[in-house]
């Protein structure tokens, strides 16, 4: 089998996160629960986020979906725990920009998320990679507004580009 562009999609680090997803267990105690759903493919993610003051203390990532969305959620669990809400939101915004093909300064470290940038070659799959992150931004917004829950159905085509 010759190597096709799909190999840029399913890189080993992506598959590893898919096979052994980090943070994939419900939390006993959390402050906000946010759900995101992608109606076009049936991907669903529920995030449980526990805060310690301004920091994210723990994240439970309960995913049901394709390898791209589960590995993206797993990478998120690794990246955001221990960070401030502000820092986590920055990572989410940068990842969104990268996935939409915008230029991002080279010094921005996306960690394992770099491995997901191959998804850009498959425009219909970009929303799979973004689902956990957009849901995280929902959770952060809910926290700031003093709500304990958030539920969103992602727009099929125009998931927020802001």
């Amino acid at each position, binding site marked *: 089998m010759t190597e096709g562009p799909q190999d840029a999609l*399913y890189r080993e680090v992506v598959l590893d996160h898919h096979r052994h997803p980090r943070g994939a267990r419900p939390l006993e105690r959390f402050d906000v629960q946010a759900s995101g759903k992608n109606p076009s*493919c049936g*991907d669903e993610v529920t995030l449980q986020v526990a805060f310690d003051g301004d920091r994210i203390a723990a994240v439970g990532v309960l995913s049901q979906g394709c390898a791209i969305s589960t590995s993206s959620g797993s990478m998120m669990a690794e990246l955001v725990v221990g960070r401030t809400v502000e820092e986590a939101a920055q990572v989410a915004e940068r990842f969104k920009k990268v996935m939409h093909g915008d230029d991002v300064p080279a010094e921005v470290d996306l960690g394992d998320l770099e491995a997901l940038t191959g998804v850009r070659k498959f425009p219909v799959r970009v929303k799979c990679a973004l689902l956990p992150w957009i849901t995280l931004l929902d959770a952060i917004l809910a926290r700031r507004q003093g709500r304990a829950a958030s539920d969103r159905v992602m727009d099929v085509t125009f998931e927020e580009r802001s």
Partner: protein
Amino acid sequence: MRQSGRSTDVDSLATGLARDRFPLLARTIGDRPLHYLDTAATSQKPEAVLAALAHFYRHQNANVHRGLNTLAEEATEAYERCRRRVAGWVGAPDAAGVVITRGATSSLNLLAHGLEHLLLPGDEILLTEMEHHANLVPWQMLARRRGLQLRFIPVRDDGELDLDRLPELLGERTRVVSLVHASNVLGTVNPVAEVADRSRQRGILTVVDAAQSAGHLPLDFAAVGADFLVFSAHKAYGPMGLGFLVARPEALERLEPLEGGGEMIEWVDLESSTWAEVPRRFEAGTPNVAAAAAFPAAIDLIEELGAPAIRRHEAAVTAYALDCLQDLGGLTIYGPADSERRGGLVSFWDPLVHPHDLSTILDRHGVVVRAGHHCAQPLHRRLGVPATTRASFGLYTRRDDIDALIEGIRDARKVFAR
């Protein structure tokens, strides 16, 4: 390759029918030959249809029913010939009962709007749990406008409609029954004639969505016995942007037009207008004349091969695919187990590989399938699965297409093995 047995012993299984007349099937995906298994989304087009499309635009392009000149006359004749050809093909009693639309979805919207004035708040429309969104959403919109109740024939675990429930579901207030002939997810071929017959006894109008059966199963308007039959050309080897609503002309007379505009009128004053005769009353604006001019070439092919032979072939491909998928093990396969009870498609769920990932890996093998909910979200909720992978077949599908699918699933399982 699997050794074939029982119903898969059909000569055409190895070669497909008339495959060499479909030029697109000769292309490659990367360095792999194309294995097109998404005919339920849209069929590929034979050379004769492509040539007819080009011929229309090269030699006859003009609007219909308008100009008093040679070009307009030829275009009008090509357009009206399509109407007559479709009427003859599906056994419509009169070409005047064939409305040319943009597709099955347009036909269903036309019906849901056209019947509105006959319905009162509290009236009921009976659908099924296996409907495509096209035969669900227009009725939901109508129900909301008019204060109607929607009711649904349940789907049994074996993928068949639970018709034991029909006597209680066909109530005093039921006015319309609309159901799919062949499910685009389960493949189930529904006993539409029986449902239409039982509805007619109660004076209930019946609509049959033949989007998946036209061109694939023998289809006869009189035998179905429904008041209205809808389908698209593009799933029956014809061009996109063309579909039909077939009825007796008297039944069309009862419908209010959905779209107003040119061509659908008889006399127009500034304040009011009168409508043209049926079926032109429902054909406002410039239709897709080129598609109409080309579709008869697809019907020619279907009739040349013969509907029973096409059906036999697609059933053999389906039986072979069911056998191969079952041999893989671990898959949940939806719909009737018997290939004689289903149209030419198989939907399945592989717990090892999500449908979207599978679809991407299959693409590397040149295998084109559909992954998702196939415009049937309520049915997927009924099945308890977020998405499925669907392989669907046409007259040109052959054994090596299925073999490539199986090889691709094996490869995907290797990639995603936990």
